[in-house]
């Protein structure tokens, strides 16, 4: 059997059979399972394709497995409090954990705790990175979602407390889920909330682009990679598919099923807690509190397979298959450091980071550089310059082009003159 491209990773709250398990996205057959403990919701993450991290439900530690050694718990990272959500950056350099109302940021290379962000007023319910690890979005039970710039958070200057770039404060009940689209800092973010809405925002500006109102509270949300559709898991077990290509211009709309894209996947009997779409946008994975994980065909809205779990499904996600997962004798390239529990390791004096050096950006480099759109503009003008030169570079072509344009100017002038004469005639005519 050739190694699959994508795999399904799921976990439930009971943890009787396994803590988390890996399934084939097409058949639903189980590949691997990782044992020991259970994982709380939105806190299962794959670090760098080499480790699986999952926060223990109701306890203050994080379980870590090496991805190829499925049976053996590699390490327990003890945290200052119960971890409510966990997220590793896609480049594998940082790990974020929501602990009560604070967000903790660890650097993976040294295990240092770089920052504690306490801007939320209540428990953090969800954290997501953008795909280029430059920003992250956190949502809490205080109805707020915050967009942070990672580089401004890890800055060296400790006198300035890091501030989020944008505060999204339009939800009126706790935020349940966040999904970040592709395209790095130009991505769009969808936030789901118990106030029965899903809102789509722009990361770069923090503007709300769309708000969709449903009949029920929404527990989970995701896009497909092309952002054609928005999938929203309701608290009544339905999954709502909202078409994002519709031509209506209003920012606020109410969800109604219709023929062009806005439809409902029916099958779950309880809260849909997690949603994920495959890379090609054809498969939708959903996990629910009715203890099943279902795979749906997006096109036909049919359930392809479903797997029963022993408890509420807390995490279910489709991920690209990590290279090491099916090679039993492989080793992680980087050993996992010990995670520091305090902000300043030097004051601690236990010398954990001996030999390591912490690299952070100085505060001065944080000053505004050109925005991404400006950069894109520049790039475009460069490209235009190149094509201009190559197309209109030689003298012959230019002459032809110039004569063409002169011709056109002449005709235009003539038309203009006619128009003028006609109108003067019309105006000066004695009525």
């Amino acid at each position, binding site marked *: 059997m050739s190694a699959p491209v994508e795999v399904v990773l799921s976990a439930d709250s009971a943890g009787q059979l396994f803590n988390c398990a890996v399934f084939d996205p097409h058949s639903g057959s189980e590949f691997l399972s990782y044992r020991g403990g259970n994982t709380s919701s939105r806190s299962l993450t794959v670090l760098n394709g080499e480790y699986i991290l999952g926060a223990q439900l109701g306890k203050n530690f994080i379980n870590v497995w090496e991805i190829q050694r499925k049976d053996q718990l590699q390490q327990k990272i003890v945290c200052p409090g119960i971890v409510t959500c966990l997220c590793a950056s896609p480049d594998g350099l940082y790990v974020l954990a929501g602990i009560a109302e604070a967000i903790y940021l660890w650097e993976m290379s040294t295990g240092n705790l770089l920052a504690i962000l306490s801007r939320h007023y209540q428990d953090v319910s969800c954290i997501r990175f953008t795909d280029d690890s430059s920003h992250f979005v956190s949502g809490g039970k205080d109805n707020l979602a915050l967009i942070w710039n990672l580089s401004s958070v890890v800055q060296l200057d400790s006198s300035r407390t890091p501030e989020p770039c944008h505060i999204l404060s339009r939800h*009126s009940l706790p935020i349940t889920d966040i999904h970040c689209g592709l395209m790095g800092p130009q991505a769009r973010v969808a936030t789901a909330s*118990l106030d029965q809405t899903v809102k789509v925002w722009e990361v770069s500006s923090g503007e709300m682009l769309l708000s969709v109102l449903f009949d029920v509270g929404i527990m989970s949300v995701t896009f497909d990679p092309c952002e054609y559709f928005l999938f929203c898991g309701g608290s009544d077990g339905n999954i709502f598919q909202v078409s994002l290509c519709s031509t209506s*211009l209003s920012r606020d709309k109410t969800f109604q099923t219709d023929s062009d894209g806005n439809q409902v996947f029916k099958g779950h009997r309880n809260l849909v807690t997690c949603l994920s779409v495959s890379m090609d946008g054809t498969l939708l994975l959903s996990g629910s509190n009715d203890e099943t994980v279902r795979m749906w065909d997006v096109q036909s809205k049919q359930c392809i397979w479903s797997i029963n779990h022993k408890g509420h499904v807390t995490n279910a996600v489709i991920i690209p298959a990590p290279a090491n997962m099916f090679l039993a004798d492989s080793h992680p390239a980087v050993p996992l450091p010990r995670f520091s529990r305090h902000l300043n390791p030097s004051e601690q004096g236990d010398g954990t980071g001996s030999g390591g050096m912490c690299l952070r950006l100085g505060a001065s480099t944080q000053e505004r550089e050109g925005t991404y759109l400006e950069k894109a503009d520049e790039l475009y003008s460069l490209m235009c310059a190149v094509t201009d030169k190559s197309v209109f570079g030689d003298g012959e072509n230019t002459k032809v082009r110039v004569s063409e344009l002169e011709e056109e100017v002449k005709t235009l002038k003539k038309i203009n003159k006619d128009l003028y004469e006609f109108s003067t005639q019309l105006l000066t005519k004695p009525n």
Partner: protein
Amino acid sequence: MKTKKQKRQGDFQKIQLKVGKKKPKADNATNVNFRSKAIHLPEQLKHADSGPTTHRQLDIKDLLSKLHHINSNIKQGALVGLRELLSAQPTLIELHASAVLSEVAALFTDKDGSVRAAAVRLLRFIAQCISAERVAPFFPLLSAHLTCAMTHISEAIQEDALRVLDVLLEHYPGLLSQRHTVLLTNFLELISQKRKAGTGQDKSGKGGFALTISTNRSVTAQQWRLTVLLRLGSFLQAVVEERPLEEGVTSMIGLGMWAGEKGSVTSVDVSWEEHVFGKGRIQVFENSGAVPTPHSTYRLRPDSKAVAGMNKELCSAETVQGFAGTLVPLMLEIWVEAAGGDRVQTDSGHLLSAEAMALMFQILTILQLLRRLTPQRDQQDILDAWFRNSYLTDFKHHFMKNFPYGLLEVARHRKKADGKRQQQVATGTVAGGNVEPLALNVTLCQVMVTLSLRGQDHVEAEDADWLGTIRVFIRETLSNGGKLSSKHLAALLEVVWRMIVTQRSRGEAGFLYFFFFNKGLLNLKCSFSLSFRSRILARWLASLPVQLVQLCSRNPQLSAQLLETIHPAAARGNKDLLQSLQKNACSIYDPQEGSVVVLPVESQKRLVQILHFLPTFPAELLACLSQVCNTGRVSASLATMLIRTIHLRSPLSGWSSSSQDVPVKDVDYLSFFFTTLTGFSSEMLQALQDTDEDGLMPSSTLSPLSVFTTTLEQFLHHWDVVEEVCHCLDTLGSRAQCFDVIQNAIIKNLCGLVVVPDCVCAAILRCVPRLLDVNFLPSDTLLHFLSDCCLSMLSLLLQLEQSARKRDAVWEACFAAMSTVPRLLRLVLQSLHVGDLCEEELPVLAQILSLLLQHTQLRNHMMANASLLQHIIQDLTHFYGGETREQWLTDLLYCYSVTLSGHRANMGMRDIY
């Protein structure tokens, strides 16, 4: 012969005339008994084929030419005709705008009053039809004529010029405000005249103008000034509002800092079809177009037209100073006259007539507007300082002398005496007619407070006296009444804010501020921006729920504002607020008079959302909430939302991850859901047992329970609620245990009742099959009760004509119950004792049976009880003694045979294979 002679005599009879008798009329006398009339041709016979005409067949050219006629009646007629023509043919306005406008404008200065009035009417009509952009080219002409009229020697024309100004202000404030240089001096000249050069010099402090008093006006000088000042006020308002807002000008008023950052978002519309093949690139705006790119120099139209000119002229402090320098002394004089007119001093304040009050109010408004004329912050400060230097003593002397002003009530009887004159004034002073003394006083405070300077110690002492008066006034106003309108409150707030900014004595100001907090005025942004006062803030927040309870439904806007503050604070877990909220929760969510039922829908929704953040839900609160859901004073969707909230907060729902705190105890949770399910509290049910209402259907053999029919509305509301309850209970972890609990609750609370409301029956019948676990055997008591319910509902079903929805709901519930629990069907059938029935009930029974038989999915279950069924039908035919076969019996037998044969056929098929 004789006869011939006689005949001749008859022909030439002589009539004798006698004295005293009337002389008979001669036969050939001319009758002069007629009247002649001149022939008048108001309309032409010929049809003008060149265009539309009025009903007098005059086309627009005729009418326009008639405007030059010497006779004023004809001019007036032409104006009326123009109005008629233009209203009939609106397209003509666009075509002839220039001609019409110039001709009409020329008539502003006509010497005949009726012509002017007609001209103003026509102008008003035209202004409604033409937009400001289209009038712009003709506006210089219009304003020139207006200026001409305003400065006219005839006073009647001056008065009418103000009417013209009204029209223009209403429709073209932007255009008019560009003409301010001329107009402002015109205003001055309306109420005053230039001093002679000699006298102007020696009183240089008083400015170059002196008030005029003309004796031959139709109104008093005071009324005239009021009308002029009103117009001046609205004109300045237009100037201020029409100014293009520049960046960083948002803080024009003191409240600017609270305006918040509500970035208006302009959407970028891109039609992809155009760009798919085109080479043109799409301009994408940074920040989704919310903020335009600063680099763009492209302008659609150069803003050369007088906007730039105005910026040059009216934005700088110097120009405003120049104008104010002449205007303010005049206004002070007017003030003195108004205040001096009738001086009645009582302890409640200085009493004024309504007219004087309106005048004073206008003066203050104009003073405020003058200050706002300069948009830039620094310029404003310069202006403030200038005002202070030049006029503080005057203001203090005149304005503050009699500060709290009151309205003189005794002025009533005088009105009757010269009612006619009053009426004339009323037309001129529509807006300024009645000014509350409170508005006057508040505006005065605003004006005065702007004069107090920021952060300078030495001036504080000298300001102390009049600021003290203001402070006393504010405190009294706030303490003795909730009658303040929101506008006044905002104004007062601004005053207080300004005082805090300028004054160093924070203690005093802080007290005032706390007062305001107590009034629940400030929105959240301001309160959080003032978080340095955290102790006060906490106390204030904690007092909000109490206020909400006290407010009840008296002031929905204020309640909405309170909720707007409470909601985010609760969401952010503010401890003080949550404690207070918890304490008052029962009264807020009271089903009878709590805020949740009396407030409008938006606030109700917010209240339900706030519920989500409550730390705990004690049993009493849940009882309240359950009643709120069922009394029907909140909509079904809100009730659904409420139920969902409670469901989510309970640990049973499996959503909230933190296990240490349990907001909803499981016992309370289940009892809440059961109470909501039944929709009637135990007391109400108990009370129902004894009532003797007409909604009651007596119990009989066919309907073992006596059913209390609820109204359709209540039934449907409850039906929606039950749907949600079932759904929530359905998603609980252990179905068997859950059902066990529900079963016990039903047995304990409902079995044994004699009178049962129909919605309760339907709810029970609905929820039992939905919650029933396949492996769970329901108890006999429950099943008996259910069968009673079922039978009662079925017989109710047959009597229901009122609503298809209700009938469908009832039938759905019965059917679902019977098809899910086959034993229930058997019990129902067993309880049908045909022998006990009276004659009239037989058809009903037959109908019930045929209904059951007709249902395809129920058929198999019916067949399982075939023998029982056969027995019943035999009894039925036996007891029915009638000779003729009735329709119902035929129907029943037909249904029975069809069902039976179908069943047999099935059996047969099965046998074959």
